């Protein structure tokens, strides 16, 4: 990514442009999990959408696996998998039918049951997406993003709104996909998630990257004070001790 810029009309003064993404550059290595962090409106989703070919790149350039995103957007789309924040599907179709449909959009015949097994949803094969719980929906949307066996997987706030069991289950899934050789780019508001999952993290604010490094180095650099030795776990540990780690949906 070189000097990526995305500008929108200013919300208060439409004649003026403001840069939601203001000349950022970063390099994501193959087979790493890369996290984009930042407050709401920092430009995370805009950055992802430019990489996914969903938004035009106003200035700068981006390449994925050697392909220029703005010039070869259809070629890029073939090798990436995308999970959006909002996931809605056609009505009256069950999970198997939807997965087969997504496969066809990539001109591929896929084994939908195998994909569902991969995200632990094989017993919901004949259910409709609206009958799924929050965590199941997220896992299903990841399954949809995997139909083309992508080289790079983009996840936009994958665990927002999930209960701790579902969240940890999803982390497990992301780790597994990554260990199979998949590059994963995700955005999140959950710092624990970023620290647990990501090999490297970029922190964005006001359209710029203000820090980028491995979680350990970032902590050493910006928060060197070691946390007091924990005498006990946190409330999430209490929650999980009481309700168990078993997935509920």
């Amino acid at each position, binding site marked *: 990514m070189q000097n990526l810029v995305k500008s929108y009309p200013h919300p208060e003064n439409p004649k003026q442009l403001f840069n939601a993404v203001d000349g950022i550059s970063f390099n994501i290595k193959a087979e790493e999990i890369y996290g984009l962090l930042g407050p709401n409106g920092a430009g995370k989703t805009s950055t992802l959408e430019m990489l996914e070919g969903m938004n035009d790149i106003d200035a700068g350039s981006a390449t994925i696996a050697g392909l220029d995103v703005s010039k070869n957007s259809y070629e890029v789309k073939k090798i990436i998998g995308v999970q*959006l924040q909002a*996931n809605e599907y056609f009505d009256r179709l069950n999970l198997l*039918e939807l997965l087969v*449909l997504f496969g*066809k959009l*990539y*001109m591929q015949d896929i084994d939908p049951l195998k994909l569902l097994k991969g995200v632990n949803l094989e017993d919901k094969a004949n259910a409709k997406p609206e009958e799924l719980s929050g965590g199941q929906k997220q896992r299903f949307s990841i399954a949809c993003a995997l139909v083309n066996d992508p080289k790079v997987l983009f996840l936009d706030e994958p665990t927002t709104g999930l209960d701790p069991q579902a969240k940890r289950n999803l982390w497990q899934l992301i780790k597994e996909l990554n260990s199979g050789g998949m590059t994963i780019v995700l955005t999140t508001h959950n710092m624990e998630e970023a620290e647990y999952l990501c090999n490297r993290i970029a922190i964005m604010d006001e359209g710029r990257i203000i820090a980028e490094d491995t979680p350990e180095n970032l902590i050493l650099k910006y928060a060197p004070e070691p946390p007091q030795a924990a005498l006990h776990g946190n409330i999430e540990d209490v929650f999980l001790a009481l309700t168990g780690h078993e997935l509920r949906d």
Partner: protein
Amino acid sequence: MFSSAQLHLAKVFLKIFFRNRQSIFFSMLFPLIFTGVFFFSGGAADPIKLGLVNLSQSSIANSFSELVIAEPSFKVTKGSLSILREELINGDQTAIIVVPENFSVTGDAGELNLILDASQVRQASSIEETLKNSLLSIEREVRGIKPMFNLVVEDVQARPQRYVDFLLPGILAYMLMNLCIAGSGFNIVEYRRRGILKRLFVTPIQPKDFIVAIILSRMVIVLTQISVMLGLAIIILDINIVGGLPSLYGMIIFGTFIFLCIGFFLGSLAKTQEAIQPIVALTSFPQLILSGVFFPISSMTEWLQPVAHSLPLSVVVSGLRGIANDGMSLLSINYTTMGVVIWMMISFFVAIKYFVWKEVAN
């Protein structure tokens, strides 16, 4: 010809439609209502309700009265002028004939008074015509004269004359337009609002594939619906498609294509589900009035006619009507087929050009 993604997507859209029982029910309701209305309102014209006041005592006046009463196109009530006049004003009689006191065959032509309420009789002139004809033949009979000639009408084209024959192609085209615009325009706005289009957009599918798939699936749905309507019309209303069904279906397919594409375009114009309603109404309602669905465009104001003739619904209506009523073939080259082809190109172009995947209304 079609890619496997297009065909599969089309199959999926069909599956979605046929799993929605309610929409199937309502889509079949309109053809049933239409044929029902025409079936029950059809048949011979009602007899004209006629009041008869006979002021003459002559035998000739009496035999005249009897013949008027016997005339099958009249439903005659005898009575006094004042009562009948009251009934006429109330709308219970259509007209009153007054046979004067001095009514006779010999001498000068007798004067018959016809009293009617023109504001109530919208077709006053046509009733007058019927009356005149019937009265003339009654006169001949009373006088014992043979008519000089019989007017034999020979219809060279032998094409249908009933209003329903004229109306059906227009209604078919209008129904086609509504089904198509609802099928593409409304759906696309809904898919976009829910972010489904956005999700499709991150796959390598192109607008063309998506549009072709919806056109294919809607074609099947619309042809099914139109066939139900046409089948009912042919069987129950005894409609004759002079130019043959293959040509008619060809024109229906062209029309479906045009209106689906227009629907896509309108769906891309509308940002929200609320906006699509008035936009669709604004395009379909003027066309319903101007496109010769209910009466021929040639009966419109002169300056309006070129505009009316060039509307997409007009070219489809006159195409269908030419085939159904005048026995034209789909392949005969004329202004209508040219208009159809031009509209197919325009609509497909604007549908693809302005297609919007992702703008989600907030």
